[in-house]
């Protein structure tokens, strides 16, 4: 590629540095940097590693609570879950690689996020994924969906971490830019968390895992650039995942972590050896010296530049206590992984990289971090849309017909085809598998406790009103945890947006952060980790703003978790207020062919009151099934409960003042459907708590009996619900 070219402003540009940024490099170095040095600057100052466009906004997110042990800034967030245990979790995107090579892109995405979690000393116990694809009929969508699903399964199944949840949306805005966001959750003893700040002058710097090849060089800068028609040329060698090596790496690292050998540890993620060594030394305010001759190499003749920028997978960097080197070496040899001392810590405050006896890079770490670019990019607010008056939206359909069409559409149909390819039970602790409940529930080995896990975002709301959408995404995650009976603790986020240099995109970003912050604060649901993916555009067209939220909650007793499946002879009660909000609803899109109106607002005070009430009822043992009302509205929620339980429901008439289609398909927020043996008692309790509640029907029989006189059998509903994926994929 750039070998042989002189290091100058033109080359810096090719490496993604602006003229001003390059001037700053010259200033820091006091001379023309070497190629390797330029490489280090370019990846460390890339959007992916430096968060230069997003940092000013991310700082506004609430990140603290009494149960937060480590918020953003570490490899993953850490929260106290009781019993001396901590949950460690984070979500990360692999959007661009998954578009180029769906299988390997998604697989290595899973591998990367796993490493962020076990690098902190946690055994990964669950994976989730939030996926957005283009229109099913768009030329590449099918191959991308197939590859991404196989890749997630291929990696997760092999490493033996159950994939327990996630979400999928389709929209034209993702035709040329799918989103693959992967989340991992792990468990550690809360007094045994491992951090990345290096310490101890003279301590050995150790490389473990796979060998280094010329994989994905400049992946970090690529993830920071928009796709153009020439993206073929920007193609780096795609990384191939090796889940077997990852599995060995997990076991070897956890075995070593049970000793006292490790001072600091960090995975080699984006920008590989560069970012891991620079960040470890930087956080510890020490210097670091690397001798690349000792780096285990898969290929011959690699240059310093290539080794420093390689994104080969399944590698870790550690600082060890010098007297424990042999203990560590023995463990990695047992697991048949490479182990090499490649350097040591110094007091110079610099990173010095040697190769074949030549100093290839010598950079002061302080300025590299402190003078990293930080942009206050201009923002423009998204124009607000007026709320839709439901009475003005014509309805020509019987409820049963609209329901049958809605639950069959790609955004609402059964995802069984997808999760049937994910091992969701390995580990023997999965209490609620995909499809069984609003959040996945995974018990903690050796404890009665369980974690509840979910990912949520409604991008069409975010496009119409990014602030309302950001608020809604956090609220929906919170609601899904409540719906299984868990106490919501914290979130991780994955901010997927377009080109931040466009004010309207930066406006979306800022507004989404405002809405999210608002919800986090009121719901006591802080952000403890996250990831930003910008430049998600093809040919200048941006994706829908997609702040994907990964939520985590805890149940003290796994046996208290409830799912969505209903049994016969229960009363169904709707909690939360309904006005019949059709703006941006799926009914409006699928039936009326319109995508307009303001999205449904979230009243956070009402949200909190309803959620706390629902959770108390679940913990009191009064609730047999619970489902939050989201995409598709009330009737879709009821139909999902009926299909899961194989039981019909007779529904009562809604309030006269709301048109039927708006009542049954409106997407008003903050609502749950509860199935209880005795509706009257629940209504009394709700009234006492000041929470809106109304009895909407009774379960039993084989059919959904609707208030407009129509019926539809649960069998017919299931057939419609389960059709899309298998028929699309031909399996």
């Amino acid at each position, binding site marked *: 590629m750039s070998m042989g070219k002189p290091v100058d402003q033109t080359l810096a540009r090719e490496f993604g540095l602006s003229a001003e940024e390059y001037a700053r490099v010259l200033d820091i170095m006091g001379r023309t940097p070497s190629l390797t040095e330029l490489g280090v600057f370019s990846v460390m100052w890339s959007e992916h590693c430096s968060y230069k466009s997003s940092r000013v906004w991310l700082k506004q997110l609430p990140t603290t609570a009494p149960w937060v042990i480590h918020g953003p800034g570490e490899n993953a967030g850490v929260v106290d879950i009781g019993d001396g245990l901590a949950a460690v979790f984070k979500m990360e995107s692999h959007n661009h690689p998954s578009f180029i090579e769906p299988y390997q892109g998604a697989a290595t995405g899973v591998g990367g996020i796993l490493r962020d979690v076990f690098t902190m000393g946690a055994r990964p116990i669950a994976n989730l994924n939030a996926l957005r694809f283009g229109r099913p009929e768009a030329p590449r969508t099918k191959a991308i969906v197939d590859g991404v699903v196989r890749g997630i*399964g291929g990696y997760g*199944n*092999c490493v033996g971490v159950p994939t327990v949840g996630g979400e999928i949306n389709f929209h034209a805005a993702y035709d040329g830019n799918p989103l693959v966001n992967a989340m991992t959750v792990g468990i550690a003893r809360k007094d045994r968390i491992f951090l990345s700040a290096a310490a101890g002058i003279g301590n050995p710097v150790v490389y473990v895992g796979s060998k280094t090849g010329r994989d994905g060089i400049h992946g970090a800068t690529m993830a920071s650039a928009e796709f153009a028609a020439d993206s073929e040329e920007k193609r780096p060698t795609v990384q191939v995942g090796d889940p077997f090596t990852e*599995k060995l790496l997990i076991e070897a690292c956890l075995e070593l972590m049970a000793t006292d050998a490790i001072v600091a540890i960090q995975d080699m993620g984006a920008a590989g050896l560069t970012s891991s060594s620079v960040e470890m030394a930087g956080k510890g305010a020490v210097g670091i010296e690397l001798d690349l001759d000792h780096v285990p190499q898969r290929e011959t003749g690699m240059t310093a530049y290539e080794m420093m920028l390689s994104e080969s997978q399944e590698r870790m960097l550690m600082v060890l206590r010098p007297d424990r080197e042999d203990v560590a070496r023995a463990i990695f040899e047992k697991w048949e992984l490479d182990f090499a001392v490649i350097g040591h810590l110094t007091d110079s405050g610099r990173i010095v990289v040697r190769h074949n006896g030549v100093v290839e890079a010598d950079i002061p770490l302080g300025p590299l971090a402190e003078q990293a670019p930080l942009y206050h990019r201009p923002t423009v607010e998204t124009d607000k849309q007026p709320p839709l008056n439901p009475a003005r939206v014509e309805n020509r359909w019987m409820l049963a017909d609209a329901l049958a069409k809605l639950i069959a559409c790609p955004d609402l149909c059964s995802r069984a085809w997808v*999760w049937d390819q994910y091992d969701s039970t390995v580990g023997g602790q999965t209490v609620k598998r995909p499809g069984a409940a609003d959040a996945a529930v995974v018990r903690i080995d050796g404890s009665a406790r369980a974690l509840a896990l979910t990912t949520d975002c409604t991008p069409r709301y975010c496009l119409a009103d990014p602030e309302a959408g950001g608020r809604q995404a956090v609220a929906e995650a919170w609601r899904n945890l409540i719906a299984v009976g868990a106490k919501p603790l914290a979130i991780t986020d994955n901010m997927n947006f377009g080109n931040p240099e466009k004010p309207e995109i930066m406006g979306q970003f800022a507004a989404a952060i405002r809405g999210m912050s608002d919800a986090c604060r009121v719901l006591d649901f802080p952000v403890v980790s996250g990831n930003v993916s910008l430049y998600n555009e093809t040919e200048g067209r941006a994706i829908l703003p997609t702040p994907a939220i990964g939520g985590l909650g805890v149940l003290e007793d*796994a046996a208290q978790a409830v799912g969505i499946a209903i049994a016969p002879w229960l009363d169904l009660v709707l909690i939360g207020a309904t006005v019949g909000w059709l703006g941006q609803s799926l009914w409006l899109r699928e039936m009326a062919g319109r995508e307009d109106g303001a999205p449904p607002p979230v009243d956070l005070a009402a949200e909190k009151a309803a959620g706390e009430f629902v959770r108390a009822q679940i913990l009191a043992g009064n609730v047999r099934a619970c489902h939050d009302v989201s995409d598709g509205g009330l009737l879709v929620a009821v139909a999902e409960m009926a299909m899961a339980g194989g039981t019909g429901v007779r529904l009562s008439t809604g309030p006269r003042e709301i048109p039927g289609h708006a009542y049954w398909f409106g997407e008003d927020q903050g609502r749950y459907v509860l199935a209880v043996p005795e509706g009257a008692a629940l209504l009394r309790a709700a009234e006492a708590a000041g929470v809106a509640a109304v009895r909407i029907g009774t379960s039993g029989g084989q059919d959904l009996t609707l208030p407009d006189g129509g019926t539809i059998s649960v069998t017919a509903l299931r057939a419609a619900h389960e059709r899309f994926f298998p028929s699309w994929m031909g399996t």
Partner: protein
Amino acid sequence: MKAGIVVFPGINRERDMAIALELASGAKPRMVWHQETDLSGLDLVVLPGGFSHGDYLRCGAMAAQSPVMGAVRAFAAQGGYVLAVCNGFQILTEAGILPGALLRNASLRFLSMDCHLRVERADTVFASGYRRGDIFRALMAHGDGNYFADTHTLDRLEGEGLVAFRYAMPNGEITPEANRNGSQRNIAGIYSPNLRVLGLMPHPEDLVDPLMGGIDGKPLFDGLAAAFTPLRAA
């Protein structure tokens, strides 16, 4: 019951198996590393599920060559009891300890879902907790569970009553629809001629706790525990 679980690199259901064995017998199983060769003192050797060596060449092919497999072969030859589930079953066929092979699922996709198994005979230590003809639920989680053997071998297995379990509909019917991975004659598990080695693809060990969705797999482990627990004085 003294059970040993063999751990090959890449195995990942060893903990699920340990939970099920301990729940039934009260005793923690011993974890046996793939390079060990001493299985003395064990009542039961278990080869669990997972992806030994990544299953990169063929499922179980590399694990079948491990040092421990010599010991497993000798243990079985001396009449020892061996339970091999999923990758374990694949390893036993690759090692030639059980006949046949496990091909890629007919759909060419990984299948992670419930299935139902019909108990073909209950007069074995493994199936003593069931009755012949019982239908029980188990979890499938494999990409290569498509049982294959030549006709002669299949006829011999049938003739000698060595088919342990078949994929069935919940009502017990043996249909192509129940046979998601495409196995010949719906075979989900087989015995060695002395009925002391069982290999099967689905996971009974993941259904031993009502919280995890059911206890359909528990009778298998209870049966084993009962067989190997010395009668306690009344």
